[in-house]
């Protein structure tokens, strides 16, 4: 069989109607990006430039040494390649990639943020990260000539006297920038489009191992959670990753995140939401805190997810380790009284390699990022 396959031009696998539908749901890519109505400068070219400058600005931090880009590194798929982020101290969670973050509706591993701009405030204020404060950010926007000019261009007026409002505006510019980070098309996208078009010749260009891996992905119902074009439904789950941070202490994930969300002055129910219709706050208004949220973490996108480590705490080093985890996960760790969504798949070595091959086709090479344009040339 193997001989025959390599000797003749490869033919694509057969795909059932249901499989074709499942494959189609993971595209098209790139998607049309929605504009965030809670952020009045979302999509504004001037705000995007200001946001990129602020993203690289170490003076937002207390010691002038740490910027967003310290942890979210462009050349590392907007992560840092570490198992756990390092700020002024080691944090409990991994720095997530910022690719496609503008398409999410909950932010952070625990979903404590309900907008990209509110999530961008957290690291500025967190004493373990940039340890900054509203006064510092506001002062910088008012006093630095280039930033003040960039602010005026983005917001249409000079920076005002209200520090907290300026902190929020800085975060809205940061969000406008981050929303532009759309990951490139991948070999999977070419295959997906070929499947939808019924173009068998184009389908045959997608490696057979990846096709077999995709079949496993569909069969194993990975896409119940890793759904849609980003390969995440944007919600939360527990796939059996240990959530002890240190002996006797746990990261309760979503459960704690919902508490933080409710207590935040920057959530979408608060005064800084620019969306007068209130429609953008729908999820925040209706979300409910459940016992089952304990130990749940956000379902990560599988696009351009970098070279690891993986999971909320970097518990698994490589994609091979992730597949091994799903193959051998202890069902007792996952309390479930129904058909479990995650169960030990007991994959053979070949099947595991195929699934990894598929997961790798969700990434592509990214050209290095040019320096941002000047704020006020």
């Amino acid at each position: 069989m193997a001989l025959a396959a390599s000797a003749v031009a490869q033919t694509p696998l057969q795909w059932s109607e249901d499989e074709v539908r499942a494959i189609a749901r993971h595209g098209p890519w790139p998607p049309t990006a929605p504009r965030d109505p809670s952020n009045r400068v979302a999509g504004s070219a001037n705000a995007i430039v200001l946001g990129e400058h602020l993203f690289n600005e170490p003076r937002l931090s207390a010691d002038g040494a740490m910027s967003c880009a310290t942890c979210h590194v462009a050349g590392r798929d907007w992560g840092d390649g570490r198992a756990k982020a390092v700020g002024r101290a080691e944090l409990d969670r991994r720095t997530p990639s910022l690719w496609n973050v503008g398409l999410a509706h909950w932010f952070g591993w625990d979903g404590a943020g309900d907008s990209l701009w509110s999530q961008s405030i957290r690291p500025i204020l967190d004493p373990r990260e940039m340890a900054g404060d509203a006064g510092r950010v506001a002062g910088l926007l008012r006093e630095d000539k280039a930033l003040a000019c960039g602010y005026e261009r983005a917001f249409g007026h000079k920076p005002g006297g209200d520090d907290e409002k300026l902190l929020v505006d800085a975060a809205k510019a940061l969000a406008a920038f981050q929303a532009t980070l759309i990951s490139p098309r991948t070999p999977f996208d070419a295959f997906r489009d070929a499947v939808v078009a019924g173009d068998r010749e184009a389908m045959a260009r997608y490696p057979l191992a990846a096709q077999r891996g995709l079949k496993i992905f569909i069969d194993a119902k990975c896409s119940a959670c890793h759904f849609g074009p980003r390969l995440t439904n944007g919600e939360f789950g527990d796939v059996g990753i240990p959530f002890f941070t240190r002996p006797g202490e746990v990261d309760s994930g979503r459960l704690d995140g919902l508490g933080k969300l409710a207590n935040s002055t920057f959530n979408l129910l608060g005064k800084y939401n620019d969306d007068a219709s209130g429609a953008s706050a729908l999820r925040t208004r209706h979300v409910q805190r459940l016992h089952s949220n304990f130990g749940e973490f956000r379902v990560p996108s599988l696009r351009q997810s970098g070279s690891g480590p993986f999971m909320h705490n970097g518990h698994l080093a490589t994609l091979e380790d992730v597949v091994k985890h799903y193959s051998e996960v202890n069902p007792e760790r996952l309390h479930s009284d129904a058909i479990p969504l995650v169960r030990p798949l007991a994959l053979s070595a070949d099947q595991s390699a195929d699934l990894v091959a598929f997961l790798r086709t969700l990434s592509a090479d990214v050209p290095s990022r040019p320096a941002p344009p000047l704020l006020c040339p």
Partner: protein
Amino acid sequence: MRLLAALIALLITFPAWADCPLDLGRGTGIVIFSSHYLIAFRPEPLRIEVGEPFSLLFNVCTKNDKPAELVAIDAQMPEHKHGMNYRPTIVSLGDGRYRVDGMVFHMPGTWELAIDVRAGEESERLSHELVVK
């Protein structure tokens, strides 16, 4: 949602109810009933997308043609025994008409709606399965 189309016909075959009209505005909807109640509803937007918030528009009537009360609504995936991550709210629009906001089916598959209705002392739970893909 091909089911919807199939059920339009069903809806149209009901006579025009004077006190409790089963009219959802666009002539489309799903009708379910028990020996006491008749419920018509439709999602808005009409196509439910995985992970996207939607609303449900309801007409709740007794079999004697009187408006009934929509008391509660919930949904779960019978296969996985988990519910929604969101708590919907019910707004009464009068005459047995209701609007339910804040529904989200966050996974593809079969979802079972549990619809609690009441008329006077008598309450009952009706259910209906929806498949989202």
